[in-house]
């Protein structure tokens, strides 16, 4: 009798089998109807797979759904993490000097603390992201990468790199991007 009850119970429970989600890190979860999820452990019962809940109950698993690892997104996140932790990031004491509004005769650069910038030149304003590519504290030189950049092995590509030099008192910024072709540095004064 008891056996029949258990079988009946098992069958009735098996009619209410659930789908589980296998996450990229290998953990398994049941998604509840209210949108919440709980982690479970998979086990084999005969020819069926069951999901063991932490409260001691279990359900039969109908289907295991594997999630797709968002590779590109994770790599971008990893690059950003690396940058924020590295000495080249905008959070480094020297690199922070670039933050502000720098104005020259024919151009203006506005760098904010969140990695966004505005370039005003030839009557137009271009908004973009920026990163600190590198700097030399002794020479007061900083290299800024503008736009989306990506890394492939030893190669970094994309966007544009501008090179600047601070004055000794960090109140002036010299745009060195035209030094090799036009032999001049463009002086910018910090106005904000």
């Amino acid at each position, binding site marked *: 009798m008891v056996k029949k009850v258990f079988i009946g119970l098992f069958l009735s429970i098996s009619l209410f089998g659930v789908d589980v989600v296998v996450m990229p890190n290998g953990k398994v979860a049941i998604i509840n109807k209210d949108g919440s999820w709980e982690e479970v452990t998979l086990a084999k019962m005969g020819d069926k797979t069951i999901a063991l809940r932490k409260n001691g109950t279990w359900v039969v698993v109908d289907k295991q759904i594997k999630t797709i690892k968002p590779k590109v997104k994770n790599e971008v996140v990893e690059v950003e993490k690396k940058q924020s932790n590295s000495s080249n990031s905008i959070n480094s004491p020297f690199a922070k000097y670039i933050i502000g509004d720098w104005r020259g*005769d024919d151009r203006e650069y506005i760098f904010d603390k969140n990695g966004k910038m505005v370039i005003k030149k030839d*009557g*137009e304003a271009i908004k973009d992201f920026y990163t600190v*590519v590198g700097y030399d504290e002794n020479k007061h030189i900083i290299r800024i990468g503008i736009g989306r950049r990506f890394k492939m092995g*030893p*190669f*970094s*590509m*994309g*966007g*544009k*790199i501008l090179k600047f030099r601070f004055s000794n008192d960090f109140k002036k910024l010299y745009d060195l991007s035209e*030094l*090799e*072709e*036009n*032999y*001049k*540095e463009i*002086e910018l004064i910090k106005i904000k």
Partner: protein
Amino acid sequence: MNFTKLSLATIMAMSFTAAAMADVDVQFGGQAVLYYQTLQKDSKDWDFFDKAGSRGNVGLQIRSKADLGNGFSAGVTANVIGTAGLEGNLVNGVMQTASDTNGDLGGYWIPEAYVAKTVGNTTLKIGRQYLNTPFAFSEGWNVFKNSFEAAVLINQDIPDTTAVLAMVNKSNGNGLGATMDTFGAVNPAGGMDNAVYALGLLNKSIPNLNANLWAYNLTSLATAIWAELGYKVDVGVPLTLAAHYANVNPSDDALEDTTMYGVKVGTKVNGFKLSVSYDDVDDGDIPIHNVGTGVKTKLFAQQILNQGAIKKDAKTTQVKVVTPEFYGAKLIAAYAMTDAGDKNPMGANNDLDELDVIVKTKVLGTNILLAYVNQSYDKTEDQDLLRVVARYKF
């Protein structure tokens, strides 16, 4: 290095082979260009948009620059030029071309292929490159800029001073229908030593004053100097004062020196830029112009078409207005009056008045230039030019 035999793929790969072990930063960019101009000239019975008096080109430029680490950098640029079939219907010629190997009015060339090394405050750049000195410079008026084969040393050890030492061997010239993949000696008169040697000192020690001095040696042809001052002051409105002087001294004693001086005053009022300038070039034998092309000059009064008249035995006065942007467009109007002497290249005493009206705007991310030029000569025929240039930069 013989550039003519290198394929495009080989050229583009050159800049990335040098420093495989270090991290390499590569930047790409370029532009797509559509260039059209049409002349109106009564003596040739040309009206605007007649095929006979019109020229055009389409072009694509890919530019790459790599920071190779350890102070090394390299750059390679490729220009591809063609007509997109315009010569069948709309135009009778091109602005620029490359060696015609297939009977087509187009081809490609490599205007830049260089390596640079920076040590401390000194950079040495060797190879094919753009230049910007008063007597040897890359001109931006045509589809693509001309370039030079040169070695250039740039040093900033002297405070507030940039020193430039250049040895310029070859140039690909520029002009209507110029074949741009042919680099020839800048100074053919020099024989075995056909380089142009230039030394420049650019100083900004005095606040608001830029002082530049250039000295040139063209072996067996001439020596030359160019000096310029630029000063900014605020007298209630911003005022810019500029002056320049040049002297070209031919090696041949039978030839006369050429002396030039010029002044310019500019200001900005309510967003409008206004300037007045005056250039005086005497009747010496060698004109004041770009030795790399023989076309443009660095005179204050240089406009779209008047270079032939202003570069020798000429006194030119120019008035220029640049408006602020209205509805996304900027208007430039310039009027130059040249009093020509009897040795003027455009004809003895053939005075010229040139009016340029230029509109610059941006449509769908593309920079558009529309220009109208009217040239009125005293002794030869007048002509009018319409020019449209669209550049999409990426």
